[in-house]
């Protein structure tokens, strides 16, 4: 896989490791979609959980009523060292080639009018992917990030995993939490993670983790979803954070955006 192997360190019992000092956690936030209430609830939660590094996996805007606030928040976190990559809705704000349809298009047209020139310019600076250590961060299928293909099942996950040398790929775009693993015997497997349960991303397997959505969950649970990785133990957790759905939905209606975008927040659908 071309990875320079770090010197292996024995893994101690998790309890013993956490007793001594809380490990530096990396928080992954994807598909915020202009939902201020969900984003601030997740950031508060991640700060309390000991996250010291933040990775934003794209789609800051579209659907929700607070795109400008969400972008300002992400920009502020970036000033503190956070990583942010581009999503398809972000691209649609500035790129003529990226055509949305239906409610998504209506939301993007509305969003474009809300954003300051600075915010719009910021979106244009975002990369399609970011690699660090043995991990790759990307919004959608990593085999061709600019095509915004969904990773829905094991075969799409395999295509993405085989296209890059990363041992762990972390993406969003689907709004449904999933974990795919590529085994030493070349089988690709799918797993629906339970919330707040650390899943060890064991070597030599390679893994593709799909974060749920912060601002518009679609797996039947209306609570906002984000990820926490302990890079020391390679354990990844999907967190669910309840937030003020009523407020977020009311703002969507007040903004004159399609009412169904407000309704779906209540059911997470």
């Amino acid at each position, binding site marked *: 896989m071309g990875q320079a192997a770090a010197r*292996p360190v024995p*893994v101690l*019992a998790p309890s013993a490791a956490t007793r001594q000092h809380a490990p530096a956690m990396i928080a992954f936030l994807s598909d915020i979609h202009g939902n201020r209430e969900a984003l601030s609830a997740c950031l508060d939660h991640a700060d309390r959980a000991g996250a010291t590094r933040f990775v934003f996996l794209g789609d800051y805007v579209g659907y929700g009523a607070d795109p400008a606030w969400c972008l300002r928040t992400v920009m502020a976190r970036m000033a503190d060292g956070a990583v942010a990559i581009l999503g398809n809705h972000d691209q649609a704000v500035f790129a003529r080639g990226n055509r949305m349809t239906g409610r998504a298009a209506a939301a993007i047209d509305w969003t474009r009018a809300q954003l300051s020139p600075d915010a719009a310019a910021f979106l244009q600076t975002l990369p399609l992917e970011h690699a660090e250590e043995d991990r790759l961060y990307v919004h959608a299928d990593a085999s061709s990030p600019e095509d915004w293909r969904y990773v829905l099942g094991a075969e799409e996950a395999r295509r993405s995993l085989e296209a890059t040398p990363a041992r762990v790929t972390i993406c969003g775009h689907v709004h449904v939490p999933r974990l795919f*693993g590529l085994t030493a015997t070349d089988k690709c497997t799918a797993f629906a993670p339970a919330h707040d*349960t650390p*899943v060890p991303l064991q070597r030599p397997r390679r893994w593709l983790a799909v974060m749920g959505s912060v601002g518009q969950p679609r797996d039947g649970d209306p609570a906002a979803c984000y990820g926490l990785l302990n890079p020391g133990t390679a354990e990844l957790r999907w967190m669910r954070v309840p937030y003020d759905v009523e407020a977020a939905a009311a703002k969507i209606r007040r903004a004159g955006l399609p009412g169904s975008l407000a309704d779906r927040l209540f059911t997470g659908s």
Partner: protein
Amino acid sequence: MPHRRPRQGQVIDGFVLGTPLHEGGMASIFEVSHPDHAIPLLMKLPHLDGNDAGHIVSFEMEQMILPRLTGPHVPGFVAAQGFEAPNPYLVMERIPGRSLLARLRELPLPVEEVAAIGAKVALALAAIHRQRVSHLDLKPANILFRETPDGLRGDAVLVDFGLSHHGRLPDLIAEEFRIPYGSAPYMSPGQAMGRRDDPRSDLFSLGVVMYQLVTGHLPFGEPLHLAAVRRRLWRDPHPPRRLRPEIPPWMQEIILRCLEVEPARRHLSAAQLAFELSNPETIRLTPRAARMRRDGWLTVLERRVNRDRSTGPRRQPAPTAHSAPIVVVAVDLREQTTPLAEALRASVGNVLRTLPGARVACLNVLLDGYLTGDAPHDEAGRSARVQRLAELRHWAAPLGLEEGRITFHVLEGSSAAEPLLEYAEANGVDHVVMGARANSMLRSMLGSVSGEVAARAPCSVTVVRPREGAA
């Protein structure tokens, strides 16, 4: 790539390899020592040569599950190193003594001993099931016992989680293999059909172990291929009492219930099975207990034809400690006022109505000081117990519970809290319901029993207090 096997004297990450304990097809096991660890340790090293993915995946699985298990019923996890290292390993607490395998030369074992072993193993299963883990390879070689300070057989310890399933982690075994993995003589019918997510598979395997210990025979033999393993889906074993008539009917009832093909017909939880094994007098006997022969060929043929049309045992969510709890209700017959007795019954009734799988143990504590003789087995003691049992039954009668769902026990001790706490610990109790002591003068003199139980119990405690003036 040729790979050197580990050897005695080698040092891996500070662990010094001592005596080899086991050299199996999948892994080598060594006694190890480490300056930072005072307890006895062992290291398991998977073989890296060979082409079988099975031992690699089962090592990964154990490496994933063992660090997440806690309590006396599993070996404590110490350290692990994955396949990225030149020498992958797993270091855990070494449980001294030999596994149950060593006892197989002495079969059949006395019924009382089999019940005691079975109860201990069932409690160990209850402990891992509560942590969402199904063992799925329960057999004598994987069952050890801790030693109590006075050298007796203590808690059962389950080892080898290489084929286990964790309800909230990816199942690497299921992902990797289409054919079921496990030990053929002990494997449940569901597991033989590829189901890995039902903890009741372990109850079946424990049934096989108890059958073997008490009769000296394996109920389904030692099949060599999967088709032969699946015979147990329709072919029932010889009833234990046919092989050894002195086995009591209750023991046959328990074993044959464990060996039911349909998981829903087995005990609702490992803790409930442990409870029956520790309280054989409370077991409700069914026609299973009286059977002296296997089903006739026509019944078997019918089952086989029906099986072939279906895909195996029906799929229903397995009960958990939450849906099939053991509820203890501590009834203090001396101080019981009518409103408190009613409030206590109402509270227990609510639990039973919402959880049809719950079973109730009604307890009362006979204080040593209550008896002038202080000898619990003399005439006065016995009649006091009988009287208390009658009072407990009287208290519970309005609940209208059928036999088998409720049992009655009089405990003895010098305080009320201690025997209750010991009982809750020893029987895997999930919930204690008890009344608050009403008389405030008594409470200030003796302290609050419910307060002490609530503070120290290993499970939930509900303290019931009727409102002033309730009638």
